[in-house]
């Protein structure tokens, strides 16, 4: 199918002091396609996006929009030219209504004289939402929407804007759109994106290659600020792409399967008839020393709530938990920690790290008691402990006093891991360990998980994809609608096929 080029980069080049972010390459983006853009952190994806949205100006080469060379001065100018970006962290204001968010800064379209016509705004909002097949009340506060709904509102906003500026073919850039979404919501998102594709170009950036492959028409691989190759979507091979991104063969097979060990017979945690009113029906299971247990299920299956009960950030309404055979009660996270149960949350920046503080502060926060001498925290012990665990989990940083906010996602995750290891957590609940992390770092995280299991730590994991779950775990627990429906064993040599499992999930 012959498509028109909508964006063209010619020898595009961007240099930062000391670093060449884009080495000068050609790339064309076509009308009415979904383009998947993949690459490791630092490969140049975000620099390229920022040139498109006018936040950076290229140092060399040309950026052609609809055939015309153009230099954009900022995101507003980009929007006026029909280029909109949905940011990873979202840009919806929680204290405004959907309508107000949709038309923020374009209220004048609805004003009569000095005043804005609220009813005209709501009507237009309803129309715009319906066009994208969204069932959202335009007068609700965005703070009450789910993350997915907020993202949809954002997309609706961008589409509405490009129409406002009379662009038949808007360009929509989505940076890690699925990070905050649940499986079902992701499905809806891509349904909508596929519908939008009929009259727009969508550029997709994600670390989740599966969804890129599944949804993109074309995949472009970047590495070290340079164009590597491109391939049609759908048919692409995930391992192939990863190799291209990392630039070397993925070592020793994926998910480090060969490092998997069999768990011992010792039961470290036993859950008996644990239930949460109207969310989770009574569930019982055991966790062995050195075992990796995956919890699998859709949203609403109750798995998220289940681990929250174990981590102490939520309370079960009935049932009991036994640790090494002794009954324990977990009412708050500190109780879980007291029983050496650690919870590594999905949202690192909000729940896992103090990004304003340095690495040492973050790694040591649970173990200050151990770092005391004569009643006071000892700076030397503090430094040694931080450096020790930084070494163990291989955090790449100049010093233990580096601010965590300045680390990459992978390194941040390693700091969180280091923090719990330092606290001697026997049982780790790992909520989406590899979310938002690039391929190279992912592999390291897998390695750490394996090493921990070998050392006798037990883990409950919930992963981004079913493949990852299967690949990592010794055993998986499948939940559906608040009930345990199946338990599948996953020995290294006889991993079940994802298709078999999906049947029981859905």
């Amino acid at each position: 199918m012959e498509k028109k080029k909508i964006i063209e980069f010619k020898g595009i080049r961007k240099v930062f002091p000391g670093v060449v972010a884009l080495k000068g390459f050609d790339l064309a983006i076509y009308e009415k396609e979904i383009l998947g853009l993949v690459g490791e952190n630092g490969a140049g994806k975000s620099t390229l996006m920022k040139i498109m949205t006018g936040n950076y100006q290229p140092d060399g080469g040309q950026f052609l929009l609809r055939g015309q060379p153009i230099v954009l001065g900022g995101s507003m100018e980009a929007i006026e030219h029909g280029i909109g970006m949905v940011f990873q962290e979202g840009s919806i204001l929680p204290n405004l209504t959907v309508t107000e968010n949709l038309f923020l800064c374009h209220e004048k379209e609805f004003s009569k004289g000095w005043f804005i016509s609220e009813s005209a705004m709501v009507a237009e909002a309803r129309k715009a939402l319906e066009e994208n097949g969204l069932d959202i009340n335009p007068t609700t506060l965005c703070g009450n929407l789910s993350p997915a709904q907020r993202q949809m509102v954002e997309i609706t906003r961008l589409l509405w804007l490009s129409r406002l500026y009379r662009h038949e073919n808007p360009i929509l850039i989505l940076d890690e759109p699925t990070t905050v979404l649940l499986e079902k919501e992701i499905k809806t998102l891509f349904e909508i994106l596929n519908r939008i594709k009929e009259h727009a170009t969508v550029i997709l950036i994600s670390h989740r290659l599966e969804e890129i492959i599944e949804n993109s028409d074309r995949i472009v691989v970047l590495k070290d600020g340079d164009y590597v190759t491109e391939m049609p979507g759908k048919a692409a091979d995930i391992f192939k792409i990863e190799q291209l991104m990392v630039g070397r063969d993925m070592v020793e097979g994926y998910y480090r399967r060969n490092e998997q060990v069999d768990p011992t017979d010792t039961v470290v945690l036993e859950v008996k008839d644990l239930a949460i009113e109207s969310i989770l029906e009574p569930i019982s299971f055991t966790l062995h020393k050195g075992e990796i247990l995956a919890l699998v299920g859709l949203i609403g299956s109750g798995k998220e709530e289940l681990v929250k009960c174990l981590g102490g950030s939520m309370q079960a309404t009935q049932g009991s938990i036994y640790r090494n055979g002794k009954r324990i009660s977990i009412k708050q996270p500190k109780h879980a920690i007291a029983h050496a149960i650690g919870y590594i949350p999905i949202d690192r920046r909000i729940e896992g790290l103090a990004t304003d503080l340095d690495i040492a502060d973050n790694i040591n926060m649970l173990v200050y008691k151990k770092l005391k001498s004569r009643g006071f925290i000892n700076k030397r012990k503090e430094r040694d402990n931080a450096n020790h665990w930084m070494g163990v989990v291989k955090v790449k940083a100049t010093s233990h006093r580096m601010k965590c906010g300045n680390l990459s996602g992978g390194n941040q995750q390693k700091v969180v891991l280091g923090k719990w290891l330092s606290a001697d957590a026997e049982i780790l609940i790992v909520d989406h360990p590899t979310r938002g992390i690039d391929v190279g770092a992912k592999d390291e995280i897998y390695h750490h998980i394996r090493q921990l299991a070998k050392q006798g730590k037990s883990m409950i994991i919930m992963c981004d994809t079913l493949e990852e779950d299967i690949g990592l775990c010794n055993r998986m627990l499948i939940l559906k609608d608040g009930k345990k429906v199946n338990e599948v064993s996953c020995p290294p040599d006889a991993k079940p096929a994802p298709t078999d499992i999906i049947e029981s999930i859905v």
Partner: protein
Amino acid sequence: MQKDGIGKQPAIKRIKGRVAGLPAISYALGMLVLFIVIFAVGSATFLTRYNMLTIGNSAAILLAVAMGQVFAILTGGIDLSVGGIMSLVSVVLMKTLEPLGFWAYWLSLAVGIAAGFLNGLINSRFRIPSFITTLGSNGIFMSIAYMISIKPLSAPSSSFGVLDIVNGTTLGIRNIMLLGVLIFMLFFVIQRYTITGRNIMLLGSNEKMSWLSGVDIFKVRTIAFTLSGFGAALAGVMLASNLYSGYPTLGTVYILNSIASVVIGGTAMTGGAGGVLNTLVGVMVMSVINNGMNIIGIDVYAQQSFLGVLVIIAVAISFDRSKLSVIK
């Protein structure tokens, strides 16, 4: 890689870059030195021993309040009740000085700590913003002080001996200054070398994470406000001893002054950054400005304006913007 880039920059830019890279406290310190130089040039008497002792004396009291205040601010809150606590403590001290002698000090400190604890409790247990909690409790503490004594209480001359423990001098330095140094060291150690201090920093920078990591946020918040009450109590005791008196409006002026000192030192009002060391410098800046204005003879009508302008300049220079994306 970075080196190459910098090497090409002109000298002025390089210096600018270096200056920008300094921690906020060095700006505050630089400003302190600047003010001292200005006042010293303005009046030959500024740098005399007697005047330094005077500055030290007032700095010690402000330091004690500000040391407490900074813990409240580090958690992201604010303590507007330090004035009420100081007043209440001063009244309690004067009332009990004669029967209890030296023990009156301990009683007064206990009252202040209890008051701070109450703030913490209301703030953390009932989840009421500290601005409201402490604004309200300030009035309550003042009323209690009024109930104890409507009249200003003066120290009975029989107990001057006890008060002179605070007012006396050791090796030519006022005891109150030595007390100030001790208080600084105490709070410095609490912030840097105790688990509570670390937890306060954690709480201020990320509350949710702190809770998930097993920090008892209720307890830590309560402790932070208790420490603030403790600082205010110390200041109340020092001030009351200094003035040989106690009355229900004694501490009022210290509310805004303590907050201003904390911010001038470079601690962010949003919490989690800055701390005791910064506040020491902030307190010094405030005390030096207050004293220097009189020393160099600023017209009394203009002093209030002069102070306001200097505070604005001080914060414009010393405030640490690097950690904040939003200035509110």
